[in-house]
Structure formats: C-alpha cells, structure tokens
C-alpha cells in the first residue's frame, strides 16, 4: 500500500467528501461474475430505498471477454447510470487500461494487485486514490483453488460493503436468497468470501469520502422498492397487463422477455411459445388475439422487420396485439449488444399500405412495467397493434422502483365469447371491438376477419367508397386516441430558449443534464415523449413557446441534423426550429457529452461540461 494517501503534488488535500450518491464501475471479464455482484449491489441499494441504475457492456466474443458493470446508487433521483465513476474496480490490467479514463479526477481506484499494475504518476496527477487489494490471491486463500473463479466477485462485494458501509445483514440475507436453493457449500463459500472482503483492511478510505445513505424526499420514505432489469419489468408488466399468450423467436436483447414469460405465463393460465421464426411468432400471437386472449409478440430490429407484413394485416383486420421491439444497433445484424434508437422509423412504418398503428416507448425500467399495461389497454380499446419500443440500455440495466400497487394496475382486456343477436366485425359508426370465435350469433350470420379490404361484415369489397371509409376509420381511431393522451410534463420553464425532447432510454440523461445546467445557472426545459404515434396533444403550442427545440436521440441525423423522431415532429408541425442532437456510437449519452452537444448546437452557454461530479456533494 505504498501509494495510499499520496496526495498529488500541487493539489491541496481538502479533506473527505460526503457522497450521497456514487457511481461504481466494476471492470473485469464476463466470467468473473461482475454482472451478478453488480446486480446484488443494485438490489441492496433498492432495498435501502436508494435509487439505483446500472449499466453494462457485453463482450464481443461469444462467451467471456472484457466486460463492465456500472452501478449508480444513491439519493433522491438517480436518473442515469452516471457519467464518470467515483470508484473504479479493476480486475485485470486491461480493465485498468481501458477504464481509467472513466474514473473521475479525485476518485478511487480499487484494483486486484495480483493482476494490475497502475501508473502511479498518472494517478497522482489526477488525484486518484489507488487502493490495491490482492483479490485473486486472497480469495484463493479463503476458498481454496477454485475460489479464484467463483468467489472473487463476492469478495469484492465484501470490500465494497466495507467502503460504503453497507448493511451486512441485508447482504447476508440476499446471498441466502440468491444461493440458498443451490448446493449448501455454494452459500457457505459465498458467505466466507463476503466476510473475507469485509474484513480485509482497505485502510482509511473513509478519509477520502463518506457515503451517506440518502434520506428520501417526503412521500417516498417507507416505499418498498423492486429492483430488476427492463426486460424483467417488461415481462412482469405484460402479465399485469393481462397478456396470456405470446409467441416469438429468440434474439438479443429481446430474448429474456420471452424466456421469463415462457416460464411465468403458465402460472397465470397462459402460455408463451417459441416459434420457428419471427413470422410464425407474430402469426401465432395474432391467432390467439383473434381468439380473444390478450397476446403479444416481440423481437429486436431484425425480427420486427420480419413481422412487417403481418403488422399490416393486424392494422387491416383490426386485431389488438402487443408487439415489443427491444432495439439494438442497426442496420442489419449491426451491433447486437449495443444501444440505439434507430427502429423508430420501422416501428412507425413497418408493413405496406396506409397502416396506422400505435407506437409507444418506455423511458426507463419502471415504464417497462407500467407503460406496457397502458399499451395493452390501448391495443384492446382501439383494436389496433401497438408497437412498444424498449432498447438495449433499458433492457439490461437494473433500476429500483416502487413496488407496483397491483390492485390498481392489474387488468384483463380479454374478450369472452357471448351470445349476441347480430354482429358486424367492422362497424363504420364506432371503433371495432372484436367478438372472438365461440361467440354465438343468433341471427346466424358469422363474421369474416380479413386482410382484404372489406365492408362492415368483413366481406371483401373493392368499392371506392368502402375503401375510403375504412381507411378513414383506421386513421380516425388513432386521432380519437390522441385526444385522450396526457400532455407531457415540462421539466424547467414552460417557455424559453431551449426545449429538449427525449424519448426512450435518454430520459434520465436529459433530466440530469437539465438539472446540471440549472445548477450552473442555465435554464433549459425538457419533455419526454412516451407516445410516439399518435402524438399527444399540445405539442405544437408548446414548441412554439421555445426559440429552439432539440430532439435528443440515439440514431442518425439527416441533412438538417434531425434524427428519426425530430423528422416526425417536423412533418407534423412544420416548425423549422425543431432540430436534433443525435449520435450513432452505440453508447448511451453521457451527461457531460449531452451538455457539450447542446452547447455546440445552440452556442455560447456557460454550462459546466467537465467530468461528471454533480452527484458528488463536495464537503470541503
């Protein structure tokens, strides 16, 4: 521990800071179980009523390879996975080499001194505190030869528990839950490694910072939180929404949703099947939906593309269906394990002909639960397919959110066969609500459900007036839906120089950026859109109150600098002051990056765009 406490020359040591939220980045290989230790940290944070958000990368190799897991936990409103880390944990030399940059000046480097040799000069210059721990050798010491592979992550958990003064009782209980159903020795070893890490002296790290478990804002105290990934939340949300049948084909990063539903749905009297391909997936889901059972399919971009033809059918035949797209980098096979928001165009336009459908996008993990319930409700209320967009970042990151009040959110929009006098499947005077097969129709005229243009009974018709009327009908129901949508809440002033517009997983970053700008005395505003088609009311008026509207999205720009949503808004409102901030590097926006891009675009503001420290509360 030679370098511990070394203060960089020329930098006055200002005493410990108090962090009330902290970003921990763990860098190693994916085999090291860093995901699971990260997930446990997140769970712990959730249980302590802290906010938490995680972020991870997945290696390019098929199994194994360098990987990181980042946890942002702490006070009040953790909205992004964090920018620069307060603590970097480096298991290997490559972890150190690749990630030192992401550690903020003045942060802590916790490294496995069995494998890593840091450049002390650099650390000194950047006021980084190195904390060497021979993690590999200590774990082997504690657990014997196999510990190197299996226990290092839990040892690290112990170390972090020490550094952050986490509640060891809670951790032990968590380990019990995680490993309890396995061979007894597994849990015993885990506990051994944990205690080892907790006991290992990392010196007076607290003299650099103290982590204070945040007090919660009024109203939030005592709230029980659940901690999970976006894909998990989506699967649970689907159950709560009433989905009882699903059919799909695996693809990253969508697969976990179907895996979980395949496992869970039978408990609810439902079923989720793996089909031979995506075309069969949507077809089977449509078949069950036609049967009156709330149904879903899902995929990532390539699979959504394959479902295009059937989406057009769902619009024409007016069948309610939830279609999930967990977006990844495109086009084609693209960047399967990176984030991008480049499927919006496809979501809006997949399929041929005039085929209006609903498109919604989750802003975070909690949305994956709650918004999907709304999506399924809309699908059934308007007999329309709803494309629900998530993305790789939301899908894989862990967040804590309040345990949903199921009594108020549960729904079951399924249709039960009844006996009716007569029935028109496609009435022109109201929104289609299908009666499922099994419905007895006493006037003896049974309906056709069809992809051909049809009259009110579902008979094929090429009559010009019929096609006009039916086309208008399919459009008008979305216009009716639009009127019912909530106007998005504005963060910041209701009028002014700049309005940022976000959708999908950029929400947290945009919010923090606006907060940080405000802290620097610059007033930006922001809204976040969850309904992308139809759009909620009031946007035009709102946009007109700002000098500039910038849509922040992770996809490519056009000649005007506009990304995919920005173009939709321009098409809708023809307002030339709508522009865009886009990017295509396959990574989530960082706060500093976004602020810099805003400055670059609007020019001349004095927003602080250096490394992220706003979440640290300097105490000196």
């Amino acid at each position: 521990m030679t370098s511990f406490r070394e203060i960089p020359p020329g930098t006055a040591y200002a005493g410990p800071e108090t962090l009330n939220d902290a970003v921990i980045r763990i860098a190693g290989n994916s085999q090291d179980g860093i995901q699971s230790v990260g997930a446990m940290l997140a769970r712990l944070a959730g249980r302590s009523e802290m906010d938490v958000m995680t972020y991870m990368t997945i290696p390019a190799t098929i199994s194994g390879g360098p990987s990181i897991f980042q946890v942002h936990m702490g006070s009040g409103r953790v909205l992004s996975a964090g920018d620069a880390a307060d603590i970097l944990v480096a298991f290997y030399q490559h972890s150190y080499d690749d990630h030192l940059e992401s550690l903020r000046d003045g942060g802590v480097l916790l490294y496995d001194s069995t494998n890593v040799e840091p450049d002390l000069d650099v650390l000194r210059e950047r006021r980084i505190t190195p904390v060497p721990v021979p993690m590999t050798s200590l774990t082997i010491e504690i657990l014997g030869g196999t510990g190197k592979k299996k226990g290092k992550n839990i040892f690290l958990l112990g170390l972090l528990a020490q550094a952050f003064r986490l509640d060891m009782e809670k951790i032990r209980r968590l380990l019990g839950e995680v490993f309890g159903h396995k061979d007894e020795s597994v849990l015993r070893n885990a506990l051994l490694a944990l205690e080892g890490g907790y006991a290992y002296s990392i010196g007076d790290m607290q003299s650099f910072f103290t982590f204070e478990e945040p007090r919660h804002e009024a109203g939030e105290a005592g709230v029980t939180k659940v901690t999970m990934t976006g894909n998990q939340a989506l699967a649970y949300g689907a159950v709560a929404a009433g989905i009882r049948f699903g059919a799909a084909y695996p693809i990253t990063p969508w697969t976990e949703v179907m895996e979980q539903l395949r496992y869970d749905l039978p408990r609810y009297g439902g079923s989720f099947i793996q089909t031979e391909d995506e075309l069969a997936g949507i077809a089977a889901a449509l078949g069950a939906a036609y049967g009156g059972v709330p149904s879903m399919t899902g995929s990532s971009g390539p699979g959504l593309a394959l479902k295009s033809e059937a989406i057009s059918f769902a619009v024409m035949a007016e069948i309610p269906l939830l279609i999930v797209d967990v977006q990844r980098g495109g086009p084609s096979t693209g960047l399967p394990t990176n984030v991008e928001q480049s499927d919006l165009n496809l979501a809006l336009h997949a399929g041929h002909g005039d085929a209006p459908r609903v498109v919604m996008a989750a802003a975070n993990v909690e949305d994956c639960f709650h918004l999907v319930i709304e999506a399924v409700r809309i699908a059934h209320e308007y007999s329309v397919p709803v494309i629900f967009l998530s993305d790789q970042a939301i899908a894989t990151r862990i967040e804590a959110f309040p345990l949903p009040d199921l009594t108020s959110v549960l729904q079951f929009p399924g249709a039960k066969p009844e006996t009716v006098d007569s029935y028109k499947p496609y009435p022109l005077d109201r929104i289609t609500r299908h009666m499922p097969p099994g419905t007895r129709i006493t006037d003896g005229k049974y309906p056709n459900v069809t992809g051909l243009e049809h009259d009110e009974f579902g008979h094929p018709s090429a009559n010009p007036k019929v096609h006009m009327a039916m086309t208008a009908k399919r459009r008008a129901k979305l216009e009716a839906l639009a009127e019912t949508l909530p106007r998005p809440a504005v963060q910041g002033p209701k009028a002014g120089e700049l309005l940022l517009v976000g959708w999908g997983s950029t929400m947290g970053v945009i919010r923090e950026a606006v907060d940080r700008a405000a802290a620097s005395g610059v007033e930006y505003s922001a809204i976040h859109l969850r309904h992308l088609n139809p759009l909620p009311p009031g946007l035009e008026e709102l946009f007109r109150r700002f000098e500039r509207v910038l849509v922040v999205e992770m996809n490519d720009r056009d000649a005007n600098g506009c990304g995919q949503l920005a173009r939709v808004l321009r098409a809708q409102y023809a307002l030339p002051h709508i522009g865009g901030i886009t990017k295509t590097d396959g990574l989530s926006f960082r706060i500093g990056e976004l602020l810099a891009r805003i400055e670059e675009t609007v020019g001349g503001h004095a927003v602080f765009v250096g490394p992220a420290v706003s979440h640290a509360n300097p105490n000196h």
Partner: protein
Amino acid sequence: MVHTVNDTPVCAEQRPPLTRADLKADKPTWCPGCGDFSVLAIYQKLLEKKNLPQESIVTLSGIGCSSRFPYFVNTHSVHFIHGRILPFATGLSLSRPDLHPIVFIGDGDAYSIGGNHFDHCARKNVRLMVVVMDNQVYGLTKKQTSPTSPVGFKSKTDPWGSKVTPINPTKKLISSGATFVARTAASNPNHMLEMMEAALDHDGFSVVECFSECVQFNPGSFDAAVPRKGGAYPPVPEDHDVTNEEAAYALTREPFPGHFGIYFKVDRPTLNETEGGLAESPTSDTALKDVRQQLEASLRQLT
C-alpha cells in the same frame, strides 16, 4: 365432444341440428367447374354431419383461390396472409381449446411460402386440421409454377415447362412428423368426406392433401385419378399399416396418381397437451385475484 362455450358446456342436442342452409354464405367467386366447389360442398356436409356448435367452428385460410374459402361458408372465419395461416391457427388452437379450427389452403400457400410452418406444426403435433386444395398451379395469380407442379408443366413462369422436381406433399408431411396424413381428390366427394371426417376426429396435426382441379389454368391435370375420365383412383392397399412410417413413406413414392386414403396415423402427445397452461381458459377474468397474489409474490422476491 363437449365444449365450454359461454362458460357452460353446450351439448349440440339442445339446439336444432346444424343444416347446410345455415352454413351457406357468399356465392363462391370461383370459375365454373373449379374443383374447389366440391371441397366446399363436402366441408358443409361434414359440418352438418358432425353437428358441431356453429360458433365453435373456425374456418381459416391463407391467400389463393382456394383460400377464398372462408367467405363461402358461414362460420367464424379468417382470411389471413399468404403462407402463414398455420402459425396463426396454432395460436388459436393453443389458446382456445374449445374451438375447432380448420384450415383450407392451396398448394402454393402450403408448400411454397408456408412450407416451413408445416414441418414445425407437424413435429410439434399441433391440434389442427388442414385441407390442402392442391391444383398443382398458382390459380389466383393466373398460372405460375407451384411447388407441386409436375416436371414439364408449362406456366407463365416456366414457359418451356418446369424442370425441377416437385414437392411430394405426403412425403413431406410424413417425414416431418404429421400424425395424420391422408390423400383424396375433389373429384371423389364420398372419399373426400371420409378423409375429412377422419382428419377432424384425429387428435393432433391432421392433413388432408386433396387434388382440386383448376379448370382455368391446369385443366385435366387429375384426369388420371378420375375413373370416369379413364383414370384410376387406387385406394391405399388394404393391408397398409397406417402406423408404419416406412411403409407410409414407400407409399408416397408411387407414381402419379398414387394412392388415395389414409397414409399415416399415429398418436403422439399434442402441443396443446404439453403446453397445458392455457387449457384453463384464460379468457375468464374471475382469476384476476389469483393473478394479483401470484404476481405480487414474484415481485416481492425482487425487493
């Protein structure tokens, strides 16, 4: 068979029996003389004979002349997209065990664009009856080569005559694991009725491959199977063991017009059985309380 429609078991006897008049719908738009008329008539006869509750019958199709079928029979019906009606019907079959989904499609829909779905429905043994109305041509799009068109067939896409080996439907079905495979022809209504009835009675994936002449674009194609046109209609040999896969396979290799009758019939658990979940009629909403308890328990594990 007892159905749970409207939540109470309905016995067919409580109602006046289903008649063919009840089953009439739009006037068929097929060309005069098209074999499909006969398939339709026999289907209506079958439904009359079986006297199933009308509302429990679902007539499904893809796209093609043959797939216009649903408009001409008065049941709940779906006219889906080209080649995908099998997975659609799979979803319906799994989620609504109280219904009788019956699929009518053409050879192009079934074996060209939809070929893969057949194989997977077959191996999974989805509870589903399918009638393939095979006219060995694309009728609706006006005479292109179909996957069952014989070598030498002249079409708009093979003006010099097709040169590729056609798909052998019964061979494909047997080898991919269908549990009921029969062969019939629209020119022989009685036999067709017999085959369709056996297919409907089969618990599993049952396919009737049925010659149905396209008088417009492939006239005379099945004359060799029509006795009154000098052809023969050889039945499946009496001693054929329908549970013997290899024997059934051998039968599929006979030269045109081959044999007619049941080639293969075995029992294997259906996907509907192994995917038991949905048997509990998820369309009932009385279970929402149970849903709450179950889901709450799952979520609490993540606190």
